[in-house]
């Protein structure tokens, strides 16, 4: 049985973090350098944005609905059922909208990117690209990162809105709340800090999803098994990093907006 040296394992992990940081940094600096691949960015935006729309709408709607349903009994005990709109609104905009959208997009797109780039890597297509004088980080990584960041921003807005609609359906049809009351409390509950938090997080999540997906794809090795491993790893890493970063971003913004 092979003996693994802790030093070697630590070196490997530090090396991986370094490679990821370099790739992520390069994907951003490429935005300011020629050539820029607008057509590829639009293609990716269509794949990430339009392609993820059905799952984002479904999860957003039912999250809002279940939120209204779960909290209604507790609110009723305190005679505050009228605050359902406020609760759904704050939960969706500040937390659940961005996080659940991020997880859905990670599941669909980080894995897609890792498997697509991983297949290109193991079949030497990425080497062929480099051999022809084309920078793969400019051609493949930056368009995916830019598209994911922009699309996550809009997908989160859609998710928030659809979640509020889900909450409204439950409040109106099952709880018998007045529609005007629901929407007014939902709207009035939101402060600038809430909206900023709700729109800032998806931008960060979009970057994490695409950069992780591309990193695992670009570093895939070992044939089809390696591509499968990279795909699986990208999903795990993107989801974990997304939730961990959510905590720190929330803490930072809560301090900033003095919650």
């Amino acid at each position, binding site marked *: 049985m092979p003996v693994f040296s802790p030093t070697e394992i630590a070196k490997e992990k530090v090396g991986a973090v370094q490679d990821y940081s370099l790739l992520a940094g390069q994907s951003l600096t490429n935005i300011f350098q020629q050539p820029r691949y607008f057509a590829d960015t639009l293609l990716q935006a269509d794949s990430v944005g339009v392609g993820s729309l059905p799952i984002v709408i479904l999860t957003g709607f039912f999250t809002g609905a279940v939120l209204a349903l779960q909290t209604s009994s507790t609110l009723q005990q305190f005679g505050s059922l009228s605050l359902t709109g406020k609760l759904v609104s704050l939960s969706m905009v500040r937390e659940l909208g961005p996080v659940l959208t991020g997880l859905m997009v990670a599941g669909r797109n980080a894995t897609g990117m890792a498997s697509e780039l991983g297949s290109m890597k193991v079949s030497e297509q990425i080497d062929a690209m*480099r051999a022809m*004088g084309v920078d793969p980080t400019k051609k493949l990584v930056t368009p995916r990162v830019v598209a994911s960041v922009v699309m996550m921003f809009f997908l989160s807005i859609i998710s928030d809105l659809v979640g509020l609609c889900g909450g409204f359906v439950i409040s109106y049809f099952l709880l018998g709340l007045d529609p005007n009351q629901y929407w007014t409390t939902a709207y009035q509950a939101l402060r600038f800090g809430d909206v900023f938090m709700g729109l800032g997080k998806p931008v960060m999540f979009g970057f994490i999803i695409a950069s992780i997906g591309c990193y695992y794809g670009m570093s895939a090795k070992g044939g089809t098994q390696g591509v499968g491993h990279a795909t699986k790893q990208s999903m795990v890493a993107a989801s974990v990093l997304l939730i961990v970063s959510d905590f720190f971003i929330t803490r930072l913004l809560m301090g900033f907006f003095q919650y």
Partner: protein
Amino acid sequence: MSSLAPQVEQPESRISRPEEPVITFENVEIAFDHPVLASISFQLPRGETKILMGTAGTGKTLILKLALGLLKPDAGRITVLGEEVTQVREQDRFELRRNIGMVFQESALFDSLTVEENVAYRLIEETGRITDEIHARVLEALRFVELEHTVDLFPAELSGGMRRRVAIARAIITHPEILLYDSPTGGLDPVTSNTIIELVVKQRDVYQTSSLLVTNRLQDAFTMASHYFDREQNKMVPAGDGNVRDLHTKFLLLRDGKFIFEGTAAELLRSTDPYIREYLS
């Protein structure tokens, strides 16, 4: 072979002095889990073809990747077209690589692009789309490899031999100064292999492109060293026993990370080294 004689066009050189070698390796070393290349040195003069041979895992493909700057050596200097690739940044290597064509072992065609888009890849990078001029150049390159009819097909619709030929068309479309072939006939039947070798010989003799060719097939290597492309007959013909014609083709044999032989086919055949005798048998 093709019924249309190719137009002779010499690539514009990046280096001013023609006598300067296009590729120079000086004491190049690289190791992964164990040393693979141990202090190897060689030169590829302009217009010459060097055939890299050796058993599997001796680092033949590695030499091509090092020359292209896809990998960085642990020690030593590599100069390509007058530029020291071991010193320049990755960003600056992209410009240099535009003057080098590479045919990968498994073709490495982009499977989501058509044959035309694959062959025109470098040119599309410059213009952003397929213009009439690019289309004409694609057809010219595909005509060279006799695959004009595959222009709208996807790589998955082609046979292994056809994919290699498309890869050659992709490598030569910009008339590079150097061509690197990584086992272009590996895994192909003898007839298709011969077609590929004829294309390599045609490129060598018609365009006088400097090239490095990795192969494990002795038959292909000796065919290259003993045949030339006759433009009159438009096919590859034997150079004859006298071998008066200089075919600008030499052999390099790798063993345990070092070159154990460098010379012509005749010198290789005359070698008394026991390992070389066994390798050739």
